[in-house]
């Protein structure tokens, strides 16, 4: 294998060899290499296939902006990731990588047929090609597109890694550790401010890492860098975070940092998090993110071996790798000349420098002459050749009048291009900071800012090392001063500056038909210049529309290398200046970020809290099946050996109706309403009348929204003249308390009432069944439980099993029932005592499913299941719960709005299927005539449906238009297999006379 490593060049550790694989082939790299630099050192340029056309692609850049070199990685132990950029992936021993978007292999790829058919895949192809015939969409187009679409292969196994997160605060955050960022951090650090400096790369330095020959204050760049690192490390008030990307810049200087902790390690320490999200609030921010080099737009600019000139220079100077043996440089900017010079000095043959500009700075021409490099000033590139790697470039002279002359072909194995530089204003743009077009520099620069934020260096168009250092120092000092620290910016002397003039490349002139040129603008999304021109011809004028139609700039790289080129092509096609065409919006994250980083600790059991009652553990020990109800987990049913859910629920139901059931109702929402105006407050909140409710009595309470629709319900006990014990639905507790607080604080602040959530203060044990009283009587002190003294809907305080209780005589089953409230800590003990004593009655623990069946048999509604936010009290058959003489309550006025009185409103009714064995599906739609044509007129839906063991048949509740007036009529429920017939009935299926309540 050829070695492209150059002796004496680069910062990688030659003495520490790394073994890794790419597509199953074993390669050697050095400590400090990225996958890209290591592959290039082995002469490998072809690393992937493009997204749409499956064209062979190589490494384009040396940084996080890379659009082409995306690979799948396998770091062992189930750690895999698609679409990792080879240019930022640090190699380590044992790393396995593979190319993407190819089958069966990278060099022989079937999907490349798309390239030959590329005329079919032009701008907007998703919208056009697949419109006809319509029937083809489901069966042909969509499956084929889905199969072909997407980048890489998503891992199928759960992510084995853990992710950390932390909040942090600092005086000055510096984003970017290049010349400007280092100067800023040094300045702010010296002032005494607390500083965080983050950089996405493994080591600080930015462009300094590619400029070993520059001298700063008399020191060679890398020596200066070593001292700067040491100075920062010596300051306790400075935190340096390498491998850390500022991914998003949010309001009030809130910045998200993604710190990569273990991806570069061959052996990951046990339990070490892979990445950490820093949620950072900074008083001041300095953005020193540098600039990104632009490709040039010409036919064949995407072949492997065609790369950015600055990247080639980085591979040479930082990694000691030559990107070819015979290179050609094509440019509209001075900086590419320096790449040619450095390569020539390192012994690489530079076949030519092609500069599209008519004139170039004389010192560059002189330097090229001295190195005996052929220069073609005022020439253009019109094509390249080479199937899997560039083998030649076609160049032509351009006259002053713009006429393209006869072509010449130059053989080469690498073509280095530069269309100038784009300041990285992404994070500034996240803050809604405005961008203004700089005509001289042909770039967007930061304008009016919205945050306490400064930009420095190339990131705001100040190119060159001296400018970067001084701008960074000034920004760092000013940021420190604004954070309350004194600072005086240092002065920097720099020798060996690069020349930094140039023009923004338009699509290069050509002697061929530009309509057939495969001149790529967006490499990752395979968008060509002609696609953008087509979009303009089809009437798209705004760059936001052009972007969406062509997908330019919409790939995972957010168009870091392509946006300005796309804009320039659109601007030329529209014959309008670039700022008039507009710039698309940058959005977080700056670079692709793993889902794990965002999730942090919030996964598995920590994704959401699970609320458990004090009796939950008993249920678990006794084999309960659980179901989630809002955040609670509740015992669903208690299967005995050999029982399925159906059998268990039937047994539990039978036990309650025939003898005694015990149920954990602790999750019921509970609110204590106390104060001299408590009754008045209740009158205003609930539909019912409360004034005359005597202490020691309960009432079913109905709560509406101001719009008149049912929001919640529950039994409410009056404990004293000024004290109510309110219960709410399990899921509604927080919502109801919030609503009550809202009215109390903002509408009726004069009422003397206090609201307290007591949901978790009480354990609630429901005892239901004809033997309920017999069981508890011996355990209760201080309460006369006789029917006369303690009737249905009574409440009293006393003791049970020796502990304080609020005892309710209530029933959600239709049977004689009690709800025993005891302080939460006694819940399990009382439960166990009663369970033990209840054995003589065959006491049966039951879960939420049985509770649902029993209440449905009685026609008791569940808010949120039988109601859906569009039901009035009358719709639900609860008109009786309205205190008609009350002048006002929340929602009252809405009940007389015309639509609320309409005759054809959906009303809650009972349903009995014609076939008693059929249990309807909850949510199933109801029609009156099953023979009408599709789409049928739906008149309602099933809200609750169960098997009733008591009745030996199914029962259901449903909302049906005008349902109460249709009693006895047959309706139909069309399902995929058949149509079920059912009869509309009343809502009470069991004991309509309520004789059992007082058994």
């Amino acid at each position, binding site marked *: 294998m050829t070695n492209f490593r150059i002796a004496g060049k680069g910062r990688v550790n030659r003495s520490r060899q790394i073994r890794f694989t790419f597509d199953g082939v074993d390669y050697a790299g050095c400590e400090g290499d990225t996958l890209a630099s290591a592959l290039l050192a082995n002469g490998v340029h072809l690393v992937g296939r493009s997204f749409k056309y499956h064209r062979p692609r190589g490494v384009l850049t040396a940084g996080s902006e890379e659009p082409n070199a995306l690979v799948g990685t396998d770091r062992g132990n189930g750690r895999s990731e698609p679409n990792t950029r080879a240019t930022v992936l640090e190699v380590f021993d044992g790393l396995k990588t593979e190319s993407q978007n190819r089958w069966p292999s990278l060099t022989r790829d079937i999907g490349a047929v798309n390239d030959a058919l590329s005329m079919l895949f032009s701008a907007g192809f998703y919208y056009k090609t697949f419109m006809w015939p319509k029937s083809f969409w489901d069966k042909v187009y969509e499956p084929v597109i889905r199969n072909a679409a997407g980048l890489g292969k998503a891992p199928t196994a759960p992510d084995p890694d853990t992710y950390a997160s932390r909040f942090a605060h600092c005086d000055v955050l510096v984003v970017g550790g290049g010349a400007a960022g280092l100067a800023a951090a040094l300045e702010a650090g010296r002032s005494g401010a607390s500083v965080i400096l983050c950089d996405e790369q493994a080591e600080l330095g930015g462009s300094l890492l590619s400029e070993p020959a520059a001298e700063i204050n008399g020191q060679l760049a890398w020596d200066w860098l070593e001292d700067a690192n040491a100075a920062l490390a010596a300051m306790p008030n400075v935190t340096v975070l390498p491998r850390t990307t500022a991914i998003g810049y949010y309001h009030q200087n809130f910045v998200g940092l993604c710190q990569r902790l273990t991806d570069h390690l061959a052996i990951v320490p046990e339990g070490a998090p892979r990445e950490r999200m820093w949620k950072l609030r900074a008083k001041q921010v300095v953005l020193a993110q540098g600039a990104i080099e632009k490709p040039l737009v010409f036919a064949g600019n995407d072949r492997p071996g065609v790369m950015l000139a600055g990247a080639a220079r980085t591979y040479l100077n930082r990694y000691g790798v030559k990107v070819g043996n015979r290179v050609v440089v094509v440019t509209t900017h001075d900086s590419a000349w320096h790449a040619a010079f450095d390569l020539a000095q390192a012994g690489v043959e530079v076949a030519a420098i092609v500069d599209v500009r008519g004139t170039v700075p004389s010192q560059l021409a002189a330097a090229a002459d001295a190195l005996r490099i052929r220069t073609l000033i005022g020439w253009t590139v019109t094509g390249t050749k080479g199937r899997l790697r560039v083998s030649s470039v076609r160049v032509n002279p351009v006259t002053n009048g713009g006429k393209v002359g006869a072509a010449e072909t130059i053989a080469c194995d690498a073509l280095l291009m530069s269309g100038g530089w784009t300041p990285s204003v992404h994070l500034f743009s996240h803050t*809604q900071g405005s961008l203004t077009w700089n005509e001289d520099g042909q770039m967007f620069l930061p304008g009016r800012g919205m945050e306490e934020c400064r930009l420095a260096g190339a990131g705001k168009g100040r190119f060159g090392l001296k400018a970067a250092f001084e701008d960074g120092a000034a920004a760092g000092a000013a940021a420190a001063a604004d954070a309350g620290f004194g600072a005086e910016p240092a002065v920097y002397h720099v020798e060996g500056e690069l020349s930094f003039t140039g023009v923004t490349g338009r699509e290069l002139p050509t002697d061929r038909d530009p309509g057939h040129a495969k001149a790529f603008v967006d490499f990752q999304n395979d968008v060509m210049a002609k696609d953008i021109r087509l979009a303009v011809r089809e009437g798209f004028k705004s760059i936001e529309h052009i972007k969406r139609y062509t997908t330019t700039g919409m790939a995972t790289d957010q168009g870091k290398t392509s946006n300005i080129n796309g804009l320039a092509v659109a601007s030329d096609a529209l014959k309008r200046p670039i700022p008039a065409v507009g710039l698309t919006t940058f959005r977080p994250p700056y670079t692709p970020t793993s889902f794990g980083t965002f999730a942090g600790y919030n996964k598995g059991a920590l994704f959401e809290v699970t609320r458990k009652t004090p009796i939950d553990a008993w249920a678990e020990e006794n084999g309960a099946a659980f179901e989630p109800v809002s955040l609670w987990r509740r015992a669903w049913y208690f299967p005995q050996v050999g029982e399925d859910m159906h059998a268990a629920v039937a047994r539990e139901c039978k036990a309650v109706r025939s003898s005694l059931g015990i149920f954990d109702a602790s999750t019921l929402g509970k609110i204590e309403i106390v104060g001299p105006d408590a009754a008045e407050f209740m009158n205003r909140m609930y539909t019912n009348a409360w004034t005359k409710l005597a202490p020691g009595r309960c009432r079913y309470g109905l709560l509406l929204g*101001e719009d008149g629709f049912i929001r919640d319900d529950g039994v409410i006990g009056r404990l004293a003249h000024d004290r109510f014990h309110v219960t709410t639905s399990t899921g509604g507790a927080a919502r109801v308390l919030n609503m009550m607080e*809202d009215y109390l604080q903002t509408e009726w602040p004069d009422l003397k009432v206090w609201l307290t959530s007591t949901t978790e203060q009480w354990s609630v044990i429901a005892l239901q069944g004809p033997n309920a009283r017999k069981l508890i009587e011996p355990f209760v002190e201080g309460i006369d439980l006789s029917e006369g003294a303690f009737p249905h809907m009574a409440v009293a305080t006393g003791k049970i099993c020796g502990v304080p209780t609020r005892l309710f005589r209530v029933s959600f089953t239709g049977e004689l029932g009690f709800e025993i409230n005891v302080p939460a800590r006694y819940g399990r003990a009382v439960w166990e005592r009663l369970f033990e004593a209840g054995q003589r009655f065959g006491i049966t623990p039951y879960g939420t499913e049985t509770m649902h069946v029993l209440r449905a048999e009685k026609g008791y509604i569940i808010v949120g299941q039988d109601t859906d936010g569009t039901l009035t009290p009358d719709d639900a058959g609860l008109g009786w719960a309205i205190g008609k003489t009350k002048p006002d309550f929340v929602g009252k*006025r809405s009940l007389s709005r015309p639509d609320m009185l309409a005759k054809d409103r959906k009303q809650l009714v009972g349903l009995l299927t014609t076939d008693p064995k059929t249990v309807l599906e909850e949510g199933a739609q109801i029609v009156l005539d099953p023979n009408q044509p599709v789409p049928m007129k739906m008149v309602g839906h099933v809200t609750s449906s169960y098997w009733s063991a008591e009745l030996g048949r199914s029962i259901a509740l449903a909302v049906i238009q005008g349902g109460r007036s249709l009693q006895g009529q047959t309706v139909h429920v069309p399902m995929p297999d058949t149509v079920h017939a059912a009869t509309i009935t009343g809502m009470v299926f069991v004991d309509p006379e309520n004789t059992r309540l007082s058994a």
Partner: protein
Amino acid sequence: MLLIRCPYCEAERPEVEFTYAGEAHIARPADPSALSDDDWRDFLFIRTNPRGRHFERWRHMHGCGRFFNAVRDTVTDKFAMTYKAGAPRPSDEEIALAASVKEARP
């Protein structure tokens, strides 16, 4: 994540402690039954939804639990000021003054 100043706690706290509660200064009519259907509809459903300055309600849900009012720009998301529930709608001058004091804070 926004920082929001609770006028009761007199402190800036992160947005996660707060819940939004709709437009401010929409008082519940003292006697709803006296309102026409249209007026009641407007009270229930019609909101200003401005582009720019918005008077709105927040609750310091995971703090003191109090509802309060805020002046926020719906374009920039910047809070000009917050004030206690029941206080009158602040004037342009009061809002400008509050915003300038805020800017001047180091």
